């Protein structure tokens, strides 16, 4: 059970991280330009032109990472509550 929880945590963290990197890469590769300059900073894009983008929005990757983060102490609690000193 402990190993299953830890494996679930690793899977969730890994999948969430990959998903997050893919989301960021996708947003950065295809930034959506905004139509108004009000209140938004201006960046220089790869060609040196001034540009501004729609903000990057959080996706399900954060929830998946958070789920993995929560599973880590749960697995440790389960392991700690079942641990007994081995008597040889």
């Amino acid at each position, binding site marked *: 059970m402990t190993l299953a929880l830890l494996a679930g945590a690793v899977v969730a963290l890994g999948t969430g991280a990959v998903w997050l990197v893919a989301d960021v890469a996708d947003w950065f590769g295809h930034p959506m330009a905004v139509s108004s300059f009000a209140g938004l900073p201006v960046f220089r894009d790869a060609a040196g032109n001034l540009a501004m983008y729609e903000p990057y929005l959080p996706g399900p990757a*954060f929830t998946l990472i958070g789920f993995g983060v929560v599973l880590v102490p749960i697995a440790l609690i389960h392991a*700690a*509550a079942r641990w007994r000193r081995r008597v040889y």
Partner: protein
Amino acid sequence: MATDFDPRFDPAFQRGYDGPGVGPVVEPARPVVEPVETRAAPVAERVETSPAPAEPLEPLRYETRGNPWLRALWVVAAVFTVAGLLATYAAQSLMQGANTSSAIDYYVLPLTVSQLAPWFTVTGLFAGVAALVLNAIRWRPEAQ
């Protein structure tokens, strides 16, 4: 005289009886229902099918002294809590900063850090409380 005896009981044990010894057993007025053979079977079945006596709930038999998982839980609690608080501070600093050199610095990093910080903070506090409870359950006053 025998008719004065209560037929339900042995006359030898009734007032006025002077006969020899204990007489025959008087058939009771209400016939005794003989146990039917098949009656034993359901009892046996009931005994067999009845659930085993419920074992008392076994308390968590773990040890806190030298428990490596409990130590790891304390470490995770501390690391997650500190990391979450630092991430919260870092996210606010990134958002308040005037660094507009790149969209990653302005948009992606603050949002990513600020989204992950609560997970780490709350989970770290949760792990700390859990470790405290695990220690408290096993705490015993020192032997006098």
